[in-house]
């Protein structure tokens, strides 16, 4: 568990900015892999500016759920509305949603044949049709923000895991997304690099980014989450504010899970 400096601005959790409508709305979402029922009747509304942490044992469907939001996975039943756009098989809508939703992966997935700068400018240039010069400036701005502007002309393979994940965050931010999805962003990192990535995420949270984060970093959850969700066997078992979630879990399975991950 990482030890983040408590941030006054975020303790215990920022009130959710009450601007118009939900950022993400999942209603009765079901998904199967063949016979295996991965997501069961998922209902979840994420408000704008809200930060949600999702935890649960492996295979519980938490990654699958957030990957459905930008259609890396297809759901078979129910509806998913992102930023007012309902996800269907319509490729135009999928592209539209993906432009507004940034994502960070467990294994970073940087493009190894491109420099850090090119990794960052690729989508702004090709998707947003931004002139190269402008895209370069934007990229340098976000590289400075994740505190590695000096690495701009290196290749991903020359960076440490923590630096690569920060580049991945910057790459997503270059698209100016309204929503950020994090799929276990620190699970593949050496312990001493977890902190630098979490700090980047905390500062993103402080700016009011809508965030959905699959993680087992409970310190992070306490510090920035508005709500913590516990999933098991494809269902949302429990959802609560972090204080209540950790001090007074309602379900036996949540208690068991928390005792396992907090117990050491």
């Amino acid at each position, binding site marked *: 568990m990482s030890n983040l400096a408590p941030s006054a601005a975020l303790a215990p959790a920022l009130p959710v900015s009450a601007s118009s409508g939900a950022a993400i709305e999942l209603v009765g979402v079901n998904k199967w892999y063949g016979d295996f029922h991965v997501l069961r009747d998922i209902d979840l509304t994420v408000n704008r500016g809200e930060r949600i942490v999702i935890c649960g044992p492996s295979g519980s469907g938490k990654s699958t759920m957030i990957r459905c939001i930008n259609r890396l996975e297809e759901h078979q039943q129910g509806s998913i509305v992102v930023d007012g756009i309902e996800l269907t098989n319509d490729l135009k809508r999928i592209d539209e949603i*993906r432009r507004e939703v940034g994502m960070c992966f467990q294994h970073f997935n940087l493009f190894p044949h491109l420099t850090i700068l090119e990794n960052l400018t690729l*989508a702004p240039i090709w998707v947003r049709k931004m002139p190269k010069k402008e895209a370069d400036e934007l990229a340098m701005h976000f590289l400075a923000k994740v505190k590695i502007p000096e690495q701009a002309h290196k290749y991903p393979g020359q960076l440490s895991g923590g630096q690569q994940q920060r580049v991945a965050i910057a790459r997503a931010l270059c698209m100016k997304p309204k929503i950020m999805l994090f799929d276990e962003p620190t699970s593949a990192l050496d312990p001493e690099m977890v902190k630098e990535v979490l700090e980047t995420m905390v500062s993103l949270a402080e700016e009011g980014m809508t965030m959905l984060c699959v993680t087992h970093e409970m310190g992070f959850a306490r510090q920035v989450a508005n709500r913590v969700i516990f999933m098991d066997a494809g269902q949302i078992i429990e959802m609560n504010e972090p204080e209540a979630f950790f001090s007074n879990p309602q379900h036996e399975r949540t208690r068991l899970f928390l005792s396992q991950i907090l117990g050491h």
Partner: protein
Amino acid sequence: MNDFTTWDVFRNLLAAVPWTIYLSLIAFAGGAAVSLLLLCLRFAFPRAAGTPVRLYVQLFQGTPLLMQLFLVYFGLALMGVQTTPLFAASLCLSVYSSAYLTETWYGCVLAVPKGQWEASSSLGLKHWQQMLLIVLPQALRLSVPPTVGLMVQIVKNTSLASIVGFVELTRASQIIANATFEPFLAYGAVAFIYFVICFSISLCGRHLEKRIRI
């Protein structure tokens, strides 16, 4: 009767080297062109083109090049179509190498990790942009070692063109062996020349691999 020096043997063999190289180049260029076309079809229409392309690959990988040469050279003649040994050899070697190149390059594209597709999808890139900007450049790097290996195979396989009377290295060595009654010298020399050509290709390949390594 004439006496042949070792130099005479080598000189006459070397005169045939350009034909082996031309034939190899034609086979590689033809094979590459056909397999690029097949790959485009396979990626653009995975359902409609997948099976026919697989069948094509299996058919030409699963039959000996020698039989293909016989069928084309003598078969076409039987049907009344006049062919030259060069045409028959070029055609067969191109088709044969296209089968191997198609399978190899297809594998290289599939070998690019799934995460690269996912990351570029999540950034909103369209399918052709992902292919062109992310996947193909990485597949190209992966493809260098197996492609160099195939080029070496192609060079050695051009020796089969001797069977339909095309005078490249192997055919030249047969002629020289018959004339000099020194088969060991002639065939030994020709093996050495093949080795020099193939080894040079491997060296170039290794150099290229180093240069594009990330």
